[in-house]
Structures are given as structure tokens and as C-alpha cells.
């Protein structure tokens, strides 16, 4: 009778490198686990260059033994373009927040897809600007209270951004999906999305993009369990999970 480790610290979460700064129940480390596990499964860790823009997720740059670039908020998409164009032999994953990509990065986002840049972009959507204290993001739900929508988001502040749906209309986009980890089943689906996105890059097809709905208990002023419910009851109805584009050629 032997014990065999089934799940533990992700192989690429080289913990001693990093501190663990996330708040209880924060799902940043969950999407990170997915990314690390898939990279590990594909055996491309040594070729990978990770790009993490300034945001709550920046902490993951501390945890990995992979080459990494830490640009400022809003720069992550363009920086990934520069890295991938100069090192097409490397595997490039750019990792940013919803503010990062849907607000300040929107122009870079649309044009990276239009240019069919061949890397993978992961957007962690926690529905607001967490790092700066919980302001409105383009992804914020209608009625959601943030520090810049104290009465809840109303029409005068616009409507929730649906980035995967939008970018799916761009010819240079090879893959686009939205996942979550509010249930083990959705965790598994998201893992599949991330793997497909990575495969598009490995197959040199085009731009690949995955949005992840991520619990932010601190910013939402909820318990971790309430946050999971919020994702279930509020976020997913407004931002449906699934694949929005999945092509093997851009023509």
C-alpha cells in the first residue's frame, strides 16, 4: 500500500520564491494553478515567458521559476507582442486584470488581435480595479457597488464589457473563451479552455484569449463563500461561460 500525490502545490509554483499575499478566498492563485499545470502538462515550462501586468495578480511573478516580464498596468499586451515577435520560439502568456485589458489596454487588445499576434492572453475578471481599492471596471455588473459607483453601476456609467464575445469578431483571433472556477466542473472546463488557447499558440494559428471570472472577497466585501455565489448568481448570467471562437486557420 503506497501513497501517491494526486494534487498538491503546482509544480511551477516554486513557493519559496514568493510570498503569498492574496486575501483568503482570492481566486488569482486558482487560475494561476491552471496556467501552471497546463504549461507543465505540455512540457514547455523552459520555453515560456510569462508577462504579468501590475495588478493584484502581479504576485504570481514571484512564485514561478519561468522567465517573466513585469510591465506596468496597461502595458502587458504590447509587451507580450514585443517579446513574442523577437522570440517566436518561446511560449508567451500574458496575464492581466480586467481593468488592465478592458479599460487602459483595450486599444492594444483589439489591435493585437487584428495583427493576429500569436500569444495567449489571460484576463482575470474580478469585476473591478482591485489593486487600487475597488473602483469601477468596464466589466463591473449593472448595480454593482464599487468605490466609484457608490450607488451601484447605473447606465450613466455604461454596461459590462464582454471581451471574449467582442474579440471573437476579429479575424486575427484564433481562440476566445470565458471560464470560471465557481464549481469543480467549471474549473475543469476552464482548464480545457486554457489548454486549447495554448495549443493555438503552439500551432501558430493566431491570437488566443481566455477570460476568467475570479472571486475577490476582499474587494467585494464578502466572505469567500458569498463571492462564489456572486459569481454563480450574478456574474455568469451577465457574462456567460463558454467558447466564442475556435478556429484552426484565420482565412
Amino acid at each position: 500500500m503506497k501513497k501517491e500525490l494526486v494534487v498538491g502545490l503546482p509544480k511551477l509554483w516554486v513557493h519559496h520564491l514568493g510570498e503569498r499575499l492574496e486575501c483568503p478566498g482570492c481566486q488569482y492563485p486558482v487560475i494561476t494553478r491552471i496556467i501552471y499545470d497546463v504549461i507543465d502538462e505540455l512540457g514547455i515550462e523552459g520555453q515560456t515567458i510569462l508577462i504579468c501586468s501590475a495588478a493584484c495578480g502581479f504576485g504570481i511573478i514571484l512564485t514561478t521559476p519561468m522567465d517573466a516580464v513585469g510591465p506596468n498596468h496597461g502595458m502587458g499586451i504590447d509587451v507580450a507582442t514585443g517579446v513574442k515577435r523577437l522570440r517566436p520560439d518561446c511560449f508567451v502568456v500574458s496575464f492581466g486584470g480586467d481593468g488592465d485589458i478592458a479599460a487602459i489596454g483595450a486599444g492594444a487588445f483589439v489591435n493585437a488581435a487584428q495583427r493576429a499576434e500569436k500569444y495567449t492572453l489571460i484576463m482575470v475578471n474580478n469585476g473591478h480595479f482591485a489593486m487600487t481599492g475597488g473602483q469601477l471596471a468596464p466589466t463591473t455588473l449593472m448595480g454593482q457597488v464599487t468605490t466609484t459607483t457608490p450607488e451601484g453601476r447605473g447606465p450613466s456609467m455604461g454596461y459590462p464589457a464582454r471581451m471574449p464575445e467582442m474579440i471573437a469578431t476579429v479575424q486575427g483571433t484564433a481562440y476566445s473563451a470565458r471560464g470560471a472556477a465557481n464549481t469543480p466542473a467549471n474549473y475543469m472546463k476552464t482548464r480545457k479552455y486554457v489548454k486549447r488557447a495554448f495549443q493555438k499558440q503552439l500551432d501558430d494559428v493566431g491570437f488566443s484569449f481566455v477570460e476568467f471570472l475570479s472571486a475577490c472577497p476582499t474587494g467585494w466585501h464578502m466572505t469567500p463563500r458569498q463571492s462564489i455565489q456572486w459569481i454563480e448568481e450574478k456574474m455568469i448570467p451577465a457574462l456567460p461561460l463558454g467558447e466564442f471562437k475556435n478556429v484552426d486557420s484565420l482565412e
Partner: protein
Amino acid sequence: MAKGEIVIDEMYCRGCGYCVDFCPKNCVTLSEDTFSSLGYQLSCFVNSEDCTACGICGFMCPHHAIEVYKYVEV
């Protein structure tokens, strides 16, 4: 007979309760009285008999505090 077991690292558990909510076999609970050094309520492994080593608690744990082991015959 238990198919496996889990080990919870008290140093990293932050008492979010995800493992408790998502274990299909109800093998995990949040203890009322034990707290981590950072002051978080700790989860603990109970009903160990029922654990199927499915791994769910492991990958749903945001703080990588759980190790899931499967028993294998040798």
C-alpha cells in the same frame, strides 16, 4: 475503506471554506476552535473513510494548502 487522504498545511490554509463546500463526500469541515498563525479559522479532514482522493479540494483550494494522496496497492 478509504481510497485516499488529504493533508492540510495549517501554515497556508486561510479558512475560505471552499474545500468544505466542494468536497463531494463531505470529508472536510472548518474547525470552530483552531486558528492559523495568521488568525484564520482552519479546515480539517474528517470522515476520512469516505475520501475518494478525487482531488477537488486540492485544486479548488486557492492557497495550495491541501495535498491529496491516493492509496495504491504495491
